């Protein structure tokens, strides 16, 4: 009886072994024949090029030609305390007398530059000044003047030569109407870049006045500016920073 039962167990073990072998072969066979795995890989940051259905650039309005520099905002400290002169003013105040001073930055506002607190600090230096030789008048000190003719305002000064020609006629003046000399208008004025309002204030509120033979020298300690005015012509001969 024992011998028979051993025989049955051995046969069962053989069957199990044979079945497991067959199963292994089948699984291996399906493994070879199975299609590649279709699971998606996790997203990773990557750079790719793609065609995007958007127009390049940004939407802009109709083209408006803007002269270089003039449309650029100046440095915040440039015009806050004492503005320089300006060339090519798009808007000038109407000619109220034979001579008019125009400051385009203010867009026809009056010339109400506050006084200069310290010499030299408020006369901003535009780094582009050096870069453009003849264009210096557009960037730095610029007198824009109009002359009054029978037919109305004419001959607005817009550039060096034009400025020179108009200056020969004594066309530019301070806001109060004090006429600049050719010398100041063409030479030292553009270099020194002292606003006309400061010139007026120096004369009107001078702390020291020296009367010479044909001229008067005004000095305003508050602005530390000296103005030399001709007594014979009334023109501004020279304006500079510092005491006489």
């Amino acid at each position, binding site marked *: 009886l024992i011998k028979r039962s051993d025989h049955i167990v051995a046969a069962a073990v053989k069957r199990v072994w044979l079945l497991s072998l067959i199963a292994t072969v089948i699984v291996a066979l399906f493994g070879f024949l199975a299609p590649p795995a279709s699971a998606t890989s996790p997203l990773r940051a990557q750079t790719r090029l793609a065609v995007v259905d958007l127009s390049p650039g940004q939407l802009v309005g109709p083209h408006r030609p803007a002269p270089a520099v003039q449309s650029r905002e100046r440095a915040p400290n440039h015009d806050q305390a004492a503005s320089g002169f300006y060339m090519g003013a798009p808007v000038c105040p109407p000619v109220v007398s034979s001579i008019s001073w125009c400051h385009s930055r203010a867009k026809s506002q009056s010339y109400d530059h506050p006084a200069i607190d310290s010499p*030299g600090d408020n*006369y901003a*230096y535009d780094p582009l*000044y*050096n870069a453009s*030789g003849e264009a*210096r008048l557009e960037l*730095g000190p610029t007198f824009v003047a109009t002359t009054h003719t029978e037919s109305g305002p004419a001959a607005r000064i817009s550039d060096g030569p034009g400025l020179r020609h108009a200056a020969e006629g004594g066309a530019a003046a301070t806001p109060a109407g004090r006429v600049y*000399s*050719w*010398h*100041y208008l*063409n*030479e*030292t004025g553009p*270099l*020194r*870049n002292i606003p006309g309002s400061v010139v007026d204030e120096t004369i009107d509120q001078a702390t020291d006045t020296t009367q010479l033979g044909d001229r008067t020298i005004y000095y305003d300690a508050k602005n530390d500016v000296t103005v*030399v005015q*001709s007594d014979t*012509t009334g*023109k501004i*001969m*020279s304006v*500079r*920073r*510092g005491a006489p």
Partner: protein
Amino acid sequence: VSAFVPIAERQDDRLRVILRPSSGVLSSTSLACVVDLTYLGDVVGVEVLDFGRQLSGGTAPISPKGGEVRWSYDPEMDAFYIHVAEGPGQVQRTATAVAFLDSDGRLTAIELQPLPIVS
């Protein structure tokens, strides 16, 4: 023969501007002037008021139209200005220059020594 070009020579604290060639300088005189300088102390130009009066009737030669060194004279104001370099003149300093005149009383050179200092 190449044309003469006015030049400005700077050596240490001396600036000499030669306006025209001259075989000989006959006279020299001092000139009260105002010097325009940049914040860095570079001379931009020199202004002379009462130019003719200070030179006792002396005159300035004709300026070249271009170039770095050029000058102008306003007879109405008797004001003379000579450009030495391009740039803004944010600083002004009074100074005394020496003017050199030729036999015709024309200005041939201006010399500044010492140069004003920008503090």
